[in-house]
């Protein structure tokens, strides 16, 4: 299998796990884990970038969901 084929297969697997994670663990936790994994898969090598981008985006989304939308995202153990 070529490298891009392998990347594709792993991404599809991650996407399925991510949806299962949203449903069973909670949206924000699952999103954080998914973003870190997908960034690493796509060649992002700087941990500071990975963590700060994930937390930054999720913080904005948390604000949007809580302030704007008043929708209860699926939540689980942590968030």
């Amino acid at each position, binding site marked *: 299998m070529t490298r*891009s*084929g392998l*990347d*594709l297969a792993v*991404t*599809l697997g991650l*996407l*399925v796990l*991510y*949806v299962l994670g*949203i*449903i069973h663990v909670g*949206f924000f936790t699952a*999103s954080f884990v*998914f*973003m870190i994994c*997908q*960034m690493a*898969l*796509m*060649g*992002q090598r700087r941990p500071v*970038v990975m963590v700060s*981008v*994930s937390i930054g*985006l*999720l913080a904005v*989304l948390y604000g*949007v*969901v809580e302030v*704007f*939308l*008043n*929708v*209860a*995202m*699926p939540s689980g153990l942590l968030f």
Partner: protein
Amino acid sequence: MYSDIIAALPIVFSPAMLLIVAAGAVLGTLLGATPGVSATLSIALLVPVTFTMDPTMALVFLGGVYCGAIYGASISAILINVPGTPSAVATMLDGYPLTKQGKAGTALGAAVTGSFIGGQVGVIVLLFGAPLVAALALRVGSQEFFWIVIFAMTSVGALGAGSVLKGLISAALGLSLGVVGSHPVTGALRFTGGSTALYEGIPIVVALVGLFSISQVLQLVIEPRGDRGVKITSVGSLWPGAAAALRYKVTAARSAILGTFIGTLPGAGADIASFIGYNEAKRASREPQKFGKGSVEGVFASETANNGVVGGSLIPMMTLGIPGNAVTAALLGGLLIHGLIPGPRLFEASSDILYPFILSLFLANLAFLIFAFTGLRYLARVVLTPNSILAPAIVVLTMMGAFTFRGSTTDLWIALAMGVFGFILTLGRFPLPPVVLGIILGPLAEKNIARAAQIASARDVPLLSYFLSSPISVVFIILTILSIVITVRREIAWRRSGTGGYDGFDNAG
């Protein structure tokens, strides 16, 4: 109509609305400028943010995003030779050569001036044209409406880029997906697989985000990796570009009018408009030899045409409920969420929402113009966002949008499935916009033909002769046949030459 406009003015110029317009236009510009995020995707990702806004505000916001995203695409086309949205492919031809000559600012200035002029002309046509079309459309009954929809579907194949056969196959796949759910008249359930989430059909917003964003993410995953190898040095002043662009008055008028007209056609989007605007400018230019080597006029022609599309494309979407391209399909999804059902009656029932919306588009164009001349130089680096950050972020936004639509976890799976489906289609070079149009227009066609059949049987005439009894239906039947003939002929020519005249295939919408 004039009283509607005057009544709309205080709404549009309220501080909250001005803020929403500016936010939409700037956000649209930045998203449009990001390679990998098309105008369609920008709207699909931002529709969920509007769920709790009031309908006027939501529409104004999404309209601003539409204007901004079509303009924003030119920024990455000029600076790094990658179109932020397919609408800017023609802009690259001269924009990037200008950047290589150290005149990035000139190109950006010409692009934003053109986008502004084209955008304003389109909105003027929308403001005066839409009420006229809506008034005409009020006289249209179910059977006529059915044929208008069928005509729109066939012209999607005739006017799209690349293989027309593949365009029609995509449209047919979309129609098939549109069948899922309860029958519009009898209520019989079809292909729901027992899932209550599918009783009302595949939710349009969910299908849309899945189809465009997840497939785009998978596309980014298989793209060659690494630094694009480009750096953005100083952009420089935009004023020389704006001043140079203003010399091409004839080009401005031609591109703006062409763009607006092309926008009203079903199936033709901003990408085709920018190419036609560019080619026509080259043909009429006194210096055609400069095109492709860094002609300011080329950038100006392409960008004026593609922003003209914005106003034009909103006419059939708002007055008939028939979106002509993928961006307006996404916008239609946004309208439906707020209980606004586009169609001829919308202008009567909700003129208090529509007129503020149309007027706000003038301000949205002004907002990205001001932004380009002030804040752009600080934010132009957005075009360098690496795929490794972009792709995961798009997935998270998609899933949030899919879930918040109606709080159903089934929708997460639908979005994922649609994304994989879209990716497979893209691999086979099947265009995605006709799929979305099929999902939206299929139920519309079905509802109207079912009603027409009821009327025909009540009058005790065969359905076919009932169709032929209406002149409007006959006109659209002829147009449908013509568009199929053109489609077949173009396909044959396309097969013989190997490629079409314009191979602008790009599934980013």
